[in-house]
């Protein structure tokens, strides 16, 4: 059985010898040249004007801004808590009626 399988596979492979070579079509070179021109136009972008670099930079700026904003909010909240207590105390002092 194993030997039969071997023989059959070899027969299959022999069929492949009858296949004519497939050829690329006549306009292959024209399409290749057009593709190469497109590629060279793309690579002609100044590095920092490349869309990928610009989108990446924008994301980075937004991220840094977000971090700073978060930090700032945190600090402001802490300060505002302190400020509120101080203001309360201060306003309390302001409104206490001095006893003579």
């Amino acid at each position, binding site marked *: 059985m194993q030997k039969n399988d071997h023989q059959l596979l070899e027969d299959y*492979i022999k069929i492949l*010898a009858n296949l004519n*070579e497939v050829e690329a079509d006549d306009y292959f070179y024209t399409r290749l040249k057009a593709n190469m021109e497109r590629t060279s136009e793309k690579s002609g972008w100044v590095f920092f004007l490349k869309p990928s670099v610009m989108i990446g930079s924008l994301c980075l700026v937004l991220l840094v801004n977000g971090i700073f904003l978060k930090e700032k909010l945190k600090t402001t909240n802490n300060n505002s808590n302190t400020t509120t207590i101080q203001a309360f105390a201060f306003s309390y002092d302001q409104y206490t009626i001095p006893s003579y």
Partner: protein
Amino acid sequence: METLNEQELILKLRQGSEPAFAFLVNTYKNRLYSAVLNILQDKDDTEDALQETFIQVHESIAMFREDATLSTWIYRIAVRKALEKLRRRKTRQRIQSIIPWWMPKEKSSDANLHLNEGIEVEQKEQAEALFKAINLLPAKQKIAFTLIQVHGMKYEEACDVMQMGVKAIESLNSRAKENLRKKLAVYYKK
């Protein structure tokens, strides 16, 4: 352009000669097309891989160290491009199976079988079955088998192209045959 020997061709390509590049493309396009089509079994992917191959040849001819023949170097690039396509196809199929709504289903490569009219109907059926089975082989086995058995490349050439030792290529080829025998077993029984 008149026929150029390899050294002259390399020199002219390095000088950026366009007729030399056209000569190179016309000399190699059919051989490469046939080899890559047998590996990828898809005309669009083959066209893409071949264009990428020639673009890379054009861009990196200055770095060609001439440690192999020009033909081997070009085949090497083409095989690498074909391998990239196969890997990308596999990744795409994996993603497609996990999140089918994310990616549209790829067209079956069966529709693109490139079998010529020059063979008899019965043989065509067998060849189709064989190509379907070849398509299911792991990428490296598929490339080794296709280059040697389908494209008729010698072992030594296949070794140079795949940058592997003779034993490794022989092993890939025999494992491919073993796998094909198993995959075709169902077809034999018909």
